[in-house]
């Protein structure tokens, strides 16, 4: 049993004991006689608090689950008949036919490679950089300056990709862009950025990190702040340097959080942020060899067709791969360090 589970268990039995006590004092007529220790009063409040989330998941994640059938049917709707009848009765089974369009493309290997490539960097850098910044931010003592840095870093997260796309365009436009403008001042030829695939792997990674780092950092900042300060004080008294404090106090405490984020990110390794890969390169054809990920491909292939069976098949595949990877990663992490695994 892990430490947290132990804690939870203790808390649960305490609460249960309280409940029995409370139940004994309660003499209100009509109150339900539950088996003692069923759920604590406190747990009830917690459950009530999570109710909106449960409702949300039921409505938007579990209720539409029947949509998986789209992937295995030739969806042929009849007008005026309700969706479930159209799906279950009016549409014939397709077996695995809907998956075949993914294999039709000769670039599928390149597309999968792109998806994995970017996700690999996003996962590694998307954890390393926010952790790094979070640790440094806690070392800053000026509250005002800290707040300012935090705000500046989180702000890009709230911009939509369309806007980010045009911000990038303002820098990289061939004729009016700031970068080419600067290059011309230094008597260099401007670059046709949107026709030069070579630079875009880096540009996309920078853009993604710029947008997501601030938000991701908040989680680690909370975790770092939660670490008992007396540990640091003790370490300072013992003569530990800053790096030693980070190495032996901060990072071990952050490990469970980092592992959780890592496992969750692995689960979506075949998914990609459509906005980043489609809006930011402005759907430029020359760049497709480095910007085309699975989601972008599906959008391009199906935009004109409105074929829901094909898109359902792709999503299904992404989920299956994500699920398998998530389970495997979790198992590996559990084997290395049982306290950091997700379940």
């Amino acid at each position, binding site marked *: 049993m892990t430490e947290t589970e132990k804690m939870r268990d203790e808390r649960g039995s305490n609460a249960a004991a309280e409940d029995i006590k409370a139940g004994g004092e309660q003499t209100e007529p009509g109150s339900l006689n539950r088996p003692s220790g069923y759920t604590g009063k406190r747990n009830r409040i917690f459950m009530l608090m999570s109710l909106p989330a449960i409702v949300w998941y039921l409505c938007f994640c579990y209720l539409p689950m029947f949509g998986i059938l789209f992937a295995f049917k030739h969806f042929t709707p*009849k007008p*005026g008949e309700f969706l479930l009848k159209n799906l279950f009765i009016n549409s014939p089974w397709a077996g695995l036919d809907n998956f075949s369009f993914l294999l*039709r493309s000769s670039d599928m290997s390149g597309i999968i490679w792109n998806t994995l490539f970017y996700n690999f960097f996003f996962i590694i850098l998307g954890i390393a950089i926010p952790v790094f910044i979070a640790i440094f931010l806690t070392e800053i003592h000026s509250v005002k300056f800290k707040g300012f840095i935090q705000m500046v870093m989180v702000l890009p997260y709230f911009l939509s990709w369309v806007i980010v796309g045009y911000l990038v365009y303002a820098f990289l436009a*061939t004729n009016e862009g700031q970068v080419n403008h600067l290059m011309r001042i230094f008597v260099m030829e401007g670059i046709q950025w949107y026709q030069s695939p070579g630079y875009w792997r880096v540009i996309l990674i920078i853009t993604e990190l710029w947008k997501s780092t601030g938000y991701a950092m908040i989680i680690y900042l909370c975790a770092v702040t939660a670490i008992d300060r007396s540990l640091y004080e003790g370490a300072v008294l013992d003569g530990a340097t800053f790096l030693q404090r980070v190495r032996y106090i901060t990072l071990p405490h952050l490990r469970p959080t980092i592992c959780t984020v890592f496992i969750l990110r692995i689960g979506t390794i075949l998914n990609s942020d459509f906005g980043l890969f489609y809006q930011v390169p402005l759907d*430029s054809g*020359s760049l497709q060899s480095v910007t*085309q990920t699975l989601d972008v491909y599906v959008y*391009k*292939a199906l935009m004109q067709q*409105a074929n829901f069976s094909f898109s359902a098949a792709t999503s299904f595949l992404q989920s299956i791969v994500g699920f398998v990877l998530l389970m495997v990663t979790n198992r590996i992490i559990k084997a290395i360090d049982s306290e950091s695994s997700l379940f």
Partner: protein
Amino acid sequence: MSERLFKKTGMRFLMALIPVFSVLFTGCGKKEEADGVINLRFVTYQAVDVPLDIKEVMEKANAISQEKIGVTVDLEFQPGDKINLMMASGEYYDMVYTSSWINNYDKNASAGLYYDITDLVKEKTPELYEYVDPYWDCAAVNGRIYGVPLLKDMGAEEMFRLNADYFEGEKGMVIPERMTIRDIEPFLEVYKKDFPDKFPLEMTKSGPGGYLNFLERIVNPIVVVPFGDGQEAEEVVPFYECEELVEKFRLFHKWYKAGYIHPDAATIESTASDKSIPVRFGVAWKGYQGYSNPEEWGFNVKISTFEGPFLSRSSGQGAMFGVSAACDEKHAEACLKYMELLSTDKKFRDILAYGIEGKHFEYLENGTVLRTPAGRDRYYLMLYQTGPSAAASVESVSRSFLADPDQWKGVFEEYETEGIHSALNGFSYDQTGKEDIIAALQAIYSDYGAELRTGTSDPDVVLPEIKRRMEAAGMDELLQDIRSQLSEWNRSKETGEKGISNDGN
């Protein structure tokens, strides 16, 4: 926190789910009609915004249509992807906008989503049948009619719109009424010499407006047939093997290299805000004034046609209305009656097209229409969104610049005399079983499309690459299927009656 509250919240939660479930299991209900008046759900394409005064205008229109034919409509505007979703989910509607470019008519008609109106339209609304004739062919799928083509510009005329103040006034050049596409080069050259930092030819990522109109597109824009007389099945080619088109791509690339086209054209969404561009593309019809309002542009615009008019199946299908296959005969007939009223009653048609007389528009002495400022702000629609454009009054752009009220007569006469007709009108390709290939080809096309049509990439470099990739994705299999369907269609045309048959075969 009491027990009661918990129970209450639980109940609320269940009650909140009830509407979700009921929609899933029953679909959306239909409105009940009172005292014999039929109410139709009429869904049309939302081009830009929903007009602010739509409620007021529809109240007025409904009062008239209720009195004349006992039909009222709920006019609803939906963007293209929403209409697709609506069709796919089997939602109830009575009449829907359908065309070759939004809510694909051929695909939906062959999937059985629309009501077969072949007999109904002749029996119940002969005036409508008469009005649309001879353009029913573009609505024929396997010899049956599933939609009403809206009479508008049925053919596409390709034109340049030039800044006449600059070219004719300042430079003393002459803008002819008709030219070839290459004749524009001296104009571009002159401007580029005067303004080396500017780009004289308007270009966005969607390419020159209507540059594909000279082709019949079997699978848009990947498999095409050049307009010709023979129309043998072998003439169906992938776009990269169509010599005329490749020539055009080469021309665009030449212009791109010469600096006539913006270097980032392949990523530019719109050039509408840059009024200084002296040469723009346009697709319109003879006498159309919408491009030439000097108040809008800040200079006089002169139009020069360089191609067309091309009459293809896709241009004929530019705007249509389909009746839902879920309608009973009563509702289908009401839809056709409404369409008939729109086609034959000019005063009624003008309400949907321009709004309320005196508020949104006024009639000028010669019978044309002038929109008021309120009309421009609060009720501005493209004519084809609400019915046949040709059935409405013609719009003048200003009091001093009057349009010809009989403009459409001239347009349709020109189609008869000068129009270049596609012999393939009436053939629709049934994609069943090849959707996966088409999806893969569309994805490949979208990798190159924008840069080819804007001239950014060199066709002689890129096309061989496209060819290689498309063939790997199953282009030959698709071509074979199209060709065999086309030969079949040609055979049935020779043996049977041409065009629309009277029985269900």
